[in-house]
């Protein structure tokens, strides 16, 4: 388990050992949706906004 820093509030976000790049998390402090950009070193960035053509 490693920690990344929320780019919005500087809160600490736990990155699980089996986390994947591209996984979406919510900051436990401010609730911002974040995307894992790197597992090692742990880095997150604001998640992309849902686009009109997104879906299943």
């Amino acid at each position: 388990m490693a920690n990344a820093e929320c780019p919005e509030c500087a809160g600490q976000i736990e990155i699980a050992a089996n986390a994947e790049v591209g996984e979406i998390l919510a900051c436990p402090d401010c609730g911002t949706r974040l995307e894992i950009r790197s597992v090692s070193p742990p880095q997150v960035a604001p998640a992309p906004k849902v686009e009109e053509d997104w879906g299943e």
Partner: protein
Amino acid sequence: MKIGICYTLVSAENKMLIDAAAKRGAEVERMLDSECVLPVAEDAPVRRVSLPSVILQRSVSFTRSAYLTHYYETEGAQVINSSRSAAICGDKMLCSLQLSRAGVPTPKTYVAFTPESAKAAAAKLGFPLVMKPVVGSWARMVHRINDRDSLDAALESREEMGNPWQKIYYLQEHINKPGRDIRAFVVGNEVIAAIYRHSTEKSGWITNTGRGGTASKCAITPELREACLKAVSFLDEGIYGVDLMESERGLVVHEINHTTEFRNSSPVTGVDIADRIMEYAIRRAKS
């Protein structure tokens, strides 16, 4: 054995697929669409990229996936689902047209390109009716239009939007479904699982589980199996989520999803949908 998974985000489904591949001893190549740089044209000789023999296309972006799938197919990979199938499923007009022409029971549907012609289409259907964007998902901008005033308001809103797709008016018969519809999962030529999607106070008349609808197990009856297999008969073999409604004239198919989600469906059906998908992908890779 390497299976490619092309995705925008690591959704619950994609993690389940990655886990399923590991259990089956298959290596996964993660293909994050946001990181792709496609060598479309380079100095000769053209450098052929090394791709997995089978790629599961799981990108949530219809537009990105269309380009990526076309590219991968051109480079010789098998993509599930194919670009042809995705193009049909991802556009509600094309899908309704194919369903109708294949003789699959489907709600009456009209498409128009101006507010005036949309009103003429509404006159053919009567109220209530359903208006949907031709491209889009998760029930976004899907409206039940109960009367002329609501139609006028919806059309005016759509005209103000910048996206030209929003000015394609897809109007559909409203089916008075019994507070639920059906999502059935087709893998290859088999219907492997089905759920009822129930509308709730949170979801309103919509049943989408991402909007607050709830899921329960639905038995795969001979009627359901036949309807689903007929619905995908005009598509290339692949993995589909077929949406059906129970109507007075029997089951009607209203949509086919080409990157179907299943996170809420495996627990209620007891079917490991991710494993069935991975088993199928591996079989295709060996064929």
